[in-house]
């Protein structure tokens, strides 16, 4: 399942998508949990009883601001969460 967390508003479209099929058999030891400087990820049991990563509820409506520090303007050349997720389950829409 592709789970898209985020929103679209007048300023743009801000979604973090997580491919839970890749996440389910994580070979990166859940590195996303520690890679995100803001600790935005958590492991939860989804509706189909799979233990997968998700963006914490309190960040889902503020991604444009919370992720700013990890974008190129913040000095990063690649996103820490996407880089840490070696199975390639995490992607940003912007």
């Amino acid at each position, binding site marked *: 399942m592709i789970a898209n967390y985020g*929103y679209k508003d007048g300023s743009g479209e801000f979604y973090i998508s997580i491919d839970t099929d890749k996440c389910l058999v994580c070979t990166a030891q859940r590195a996303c949990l520690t890679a995100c400087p803001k600790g935005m990820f958590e492991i939860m049991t989804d509706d189909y009883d799979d233990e997968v990563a998700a963006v914490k509820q309190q960040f889902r409506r503020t991604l444009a601001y919370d992720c700013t520090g990890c974008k190129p303007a913040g000095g990063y050349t690649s996103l820490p969460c996407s880089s840490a997720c070696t199975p390639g389950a995490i992607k940003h829409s912007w």
Partner: protein
Amino acid sequence: MSTGEKKEYWRWEESCWIDEGKNWRDAKIITAGIDVGSVSSQAVICVDGELYGYNSMRTGNNSPDSATNAVNAVLAKSGMKLEDITYVIGTGYGRVNVPFAHKAITEIACHARGANYMGGSSIRTILDMGGQDCKAIHCDEKGKVTNFLMNDKCAAGTGRGMEVIADLMQIPIAELGDRSFDVDVEPAAVSSTCVVFAKSEALGLLKSGYTKNKVIAAYCQAMAERVVSLIERIGVENDFFITGGIAKNSGVVKRIEKLLGTTAADTKYDSQIAGALGAALFGYTLMQKQGAAAAKAAA
């Protein structure tokens, strides 16, 4: 000073229905799904995995009371008691506040499951236009979610937005869809994505000479464009199905169909009960699994 009662143009019709052709006393498993949304609440009762009855009403300011009121109406109509229900699943915005629920499941999974029942196993793309959010869901032939996105940050493209326009135009919400086609020329969509600004823009259009119908058409078009941009992010695969209250607004539905180049699948069921129905069906599957496991253990 006027003593007349203020008419609530936004108020949509609540409904309660049971299938008189079914006898719940004959059922082995009775499950209920309670969808407490931000605007409306639904209670659906399934007997042996088939829809038996539902109630759809406006959500009050208290989720537990809304859940209780929703189920009580359908229980009263059927002569059933809450204790007769084997398993209850809560879903929707207030799913964790359903006092008698055994489990909570997100409305995304429940809408997919409900749409699979209402529209058939060929349904792949679902658009749920709820009271205060909008969801685009892709599912497989069993109604299992394969891709989803949700927008609950902005009221544009939601039922609440349509209620605001109904009140502003002083036209009953159920009439908005048909009236939006009663225009000489299809107007451009209102440009504001925010409901508050769209309201101001609508007033400006009225002042500039637009008829009420033309303003409604412009708003329906804006709402359609708004949700189509969302659904295109996950891709549209036929069959396509729309759930939620806005599915009853032909002005928005037909414009979405035109923009997507497809037709939404028809259903004989109330589009607003999809989430609660899906929850009740989840409950049935769970009970079947538990029954099978218990039978296996006893053998």
